């Protein structure tokens, strides 16, 4: 097991598991995409890279969606 941080909250996570498994398979974000983006350690992780990106201990994942703003 490794420890990651998702949206500011610590979360235990299995070794050798990818970002798509985290976002869609575990956290249940909509699979149709387009309504949120994922940042890994502060940098954009495009959706096409989710399956091939294995999370490491200490990684910080943020899932961001649209909000109203001025």
């Amino acid at each position, binding site marked *: 097991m490794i420890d990651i941080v998702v949206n500011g909250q610590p979360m235990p996570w299995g070794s050798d598991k990818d970002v798509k498994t985290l976002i869609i398979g575990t956290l249940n974000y909509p699979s149709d995409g387009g309504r*949120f983006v994922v940042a890994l350690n502060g940098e*954009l992780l495009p959706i096409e890279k989710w399956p091939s990106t294995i999370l490491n201990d200490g990684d910080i994942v943020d899932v961001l969606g*649209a*909000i109203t*703003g001025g």
Partner: protein
Amino acid sequence: MADSDGLTIAGEEISSRLWLGSSMYPSPDLMVSAFAHAQPGFVTMSLRRQTAGDVANNDYHERVSHWLGASQARLLPNTAGCQSAKEAIQLAVLARELFKTSWVKLEVIGDEYSLQPNVFELVSAARELSAQDFKVLPYCTDDLVVCEALLHAGCPAVMPWGAPIGTGKGIVNPYQLRTLRARLPEAKIIIDAGIGRPSQAMQAMEMGADGVLLNTAVAKAADPVAMAGAFAASVKAGRTAYQAGFMAERDMASPSTPVAGLPFWHRSGRQRAGCQSTGRQDVDRKGKSQ
């Protein structure tokens, strides 16, 4: 109520000189009704961490996206809340991916109390984002040198504050806006923040601003839809007035109705008014002292 008379920024025609934020409306329905009434050129949004449930039930985003799809308005993501160039650049990149637009309202806050921009970080972020082909519209102070630096950094327009965000105080430093207009005659200047009343938006437009971006004044009005329409009308009127050219201001009165031809014209003003002499010498029309 679209009021475009050819506002072009970064080579793209913007449909209106009134731009609106999407925050703080009582409901999504009122928000899109206000947009429909005002027909803004841009609508601003932002992005934040969200749970799966937040994403699935994001009414505001869905309504804004749907409305934008049927209008001429554009979406303008912001980097609100960022406090460094690095943060703003990261959020802008994420916003471009989420909203599928390279427009960005660049905000880098330097003081949490006044929400005054950190202009040093702002210029740095603007330079980097412009290099990455963003169309950067920076929320900035009304400092001439800062605005020049932002334009040199590649920004196609600058967005100086009228007053601090959410204050509704209007143009607190009209001298500075006049200076910006005079010294940067070719620059696109959008007044962003601090506008509380349609008359203040009109003042900005009369002074030569190219547009106005506001949020709270409409969203927090008792009737946001009516207020959105009032702002659209004021921005249009202010722009028209600026283009029409103003009369020269005078210190002394000047009659608008011709005096010549009045049947009492040969008598002095004091004689006609029936006044007693005050010691001031009146002179009749032939130059003869009375």
